[in-house]
């Protein structure tokens, strides 16, 4: 009985061995402390501060404010057509960009994985837009989209699709914005995919060839499953990047943009510019929740796809 009674006590006093078997020295905490302090001060505290602002009517500059409870959130979710429009635009934009950009960058990566002189040049060409600032990209595409002077309209008119306002048409403007976003970032994510593809051992492909697998079968049963973890990173990154495509929209359409191009990031900015700091903070919190939700759903969908 004594032995049985003593066993739990022994278990609580005896420390569980670490998986690595190495116990960090106490002084190692000192190395982490500066990073923790910086993270707390610059990331965690402002995030919590935003939550606090979101239940006030602070205008962004006054020394006084009032607590308004959940009024900002109630207003946003029940009586704000501009926020609803921006949320729908953001979701549509992110959905299109996440799919198109992932597929395009994967396709480019598959075509350019082998290191040859031509593929090196082409990789640089496709990567080039990624080094441009969003403002420069916006300025260039303003002219591309211009129906009078831009090259896009004559090209589309030649196949009977021209004459549009492109960035002005409700429903399609956000798709044209997605075209710019994909153009600007597909090359960057192509590089990530190339790194993932180059990790796949060549012997798998050789064995599959010996077994008579076609090019498509090798892609379907070797490349796709093994590149899935990279795809997960690319999709998650693309999602967050698309939700935050703020400077591109601002450069193309100004502040605040016309409703067809208004996304959540620009809506929040408009709130700050309008001295509705508390309200914009509430928009920011909902924005954060939406990104977290979409990212979580994506991870689940991709994980299930990979398991299947």
């Amino acid at each position: 009985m004594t032995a049985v009674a003593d066993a739990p006590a022994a278990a609580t006093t005896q420390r569980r061995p670490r998986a690595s078997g190495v116990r960090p020295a106490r002084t190692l905490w000192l190395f982490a402390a500066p990073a923790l302090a910086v993270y707390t001060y610059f990331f965690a505290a402002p995030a919590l501060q935003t939550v606090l602002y979101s239940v006030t009517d602070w205008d962004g500059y006054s020394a006084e404010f009032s607590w308004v409870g959940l009024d900002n959130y109630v207003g946003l979710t029940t009586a704000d057509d501009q926020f609803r429009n921006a949320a729908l635009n953001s979701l549509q934009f992110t959905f299109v960009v996440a799919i198109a950009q992932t597929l395009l960058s994967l396709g480019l990566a598959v075509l350019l994985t082998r290191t040859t002189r031509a593929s090196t040049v082409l990789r640089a060409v496709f990567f080039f837009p990624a080094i441009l600032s969003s403002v420069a990209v916006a300025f260039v595409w303003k002219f591309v989209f211009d129906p009078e002077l831009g090259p896009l309209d004559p090209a589309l008119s030649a196949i009977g699709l021209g004459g549009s306002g492109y960035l002005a048409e409700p429903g399609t403007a956000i798709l044209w914005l997605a075209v710019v976003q994909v153009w600007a970032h597909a090359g960057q994510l192509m590089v990530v995919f190339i790194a993932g593809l180059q990790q796949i051992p060549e012997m798998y492909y050789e064995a599959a060839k010996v077994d008579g697998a076609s090019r498509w079968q090798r892609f379907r049963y070797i490349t796709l499953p093994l590149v899935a973890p990279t795809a997960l990173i690319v999709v998650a990154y693309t999602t967050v990047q698309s939700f935050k495509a703020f400077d591109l929209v601002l450069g193309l359409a100004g502040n605040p943009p016309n409703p067809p191009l208004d996304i959540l990031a620009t809506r929040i900015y408009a709130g700050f510019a309008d001295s509705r700091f508390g309200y914009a903070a509430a928009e920011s919190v909902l924005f954060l929740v939406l990104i977290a939700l979409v990212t979580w759903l994506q991870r689940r969908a991709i994980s299930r796809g990979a398991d299947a």
Partner: protein
Amino acid sequence: MSRLSRRHFLAGTAAAGLLAGCALPGTTRAGGAAPGGGGASGPALVPAPARPASGEISFAHWRGEDRAVLDGIIAAFVAENPGAAVRQDISPSSDYQSTALLRIRRGGTGDVFTAFRGAQFVDMVDAGLYGDLSAQPFTDGYLPRLVRSGRDAQGNQLGLPYQYVFNMPLVNTDLLAAAGASSAPADWDGFLALCESLRGLGIAPIAWPGGEPANAGQLLNAMVMNNAPTDDMFTAIEAGTARVTDDWFLTTLRQYAQLAPYFQDGALGASSEPCQQVFASGGAAMLATGSFHLTAVRTLGAAFPIDLIAPITVDAGAARHQGVANATFLVGVSTSSEKQDAAVAFVEFLSRPEVASRYANGTVQHSTVAGVEYTDPDLRATARWLDAPVILAPRFQFENLDIRSAVENACVEVVRGVPPEQAAESAQTVVDQRRPG
């Protein structure tokens, strides 16, 4: 320290840091006003300019295109005040619209600063940012009717509008003559007839940047100036005493629909830079933005004579206004400045007629300073508008950008083909959602 207590210590430290970092910026209203709060006791008077000025000051503004001219003016100021220096802190206009208030209030930037007339000026006044210049003798050197936009509700002269721009279309007078018009039409029917004649020449009558809200909205100024029953039409809409669905605004929207065929192809998706190119190349007779684009179109190679033109939307006898102007670029001295002496001295320097002349001719903007001599040919050609019956640009009466955007977007929707009543209803919904209270 045991491992458990160390963890607690770290968690406690982080929590304390978070709580300290999350402190809100002031007090709740029930707790009374905090120091530095929004000007409840009236704006602080700034000191008289010291002679000679000394120390480095920051001049915050959004006019990147004026940098070179201002550099020259600053050099002259420094030559007169060898101990002084002026640094230009320039932000793009959209960025300045959004962040200037917070940056200037924090100090270090914008000892002398500027504001857009309208929402930004009101916010900056409410924030107590403008020092009161009322007692400064140099404010008497401005044209009295043009400096009103820099006053607060009590009549204190807080900002000095340094630019006088015309927010009405530029017109290529050669094309106007080719269309058989010797002068601007005096009524709406005449304006539509002019547009039809211009279209007959095979050009776009009006280049309108419908895809760029900031410039698309400039045309609205002229479209409402005579339609609205009062000159404070947009203040009334924001206050709820007028509605976007009122007859006068519906009339305006119907007139936008009539103008739709006369805008350049794809106007709804166009931004101002391509519109400037179309106008500069003679592909459009009018550029529906304002005199602030004169320099740009000249730079793009426009060699034809340019004047200003505003559509008169009513019968000739019923027109109260012939054009639209805006007294903006409201220069002021920051109450957060630690070098107010030098800042006031710089504003005094800017207010001298010879300095204002240099600025006006160098930047091709008219001035609000009395006694300015215009040597630039475009400024001379349009100087007659300085004495014309113009209205201060109504769109800057809006103090809420979302409300302004909704009202202006109703015009864009109508040009797209949406019925005026439906566009007005949609805009009114946003106005109701955004209106304070």
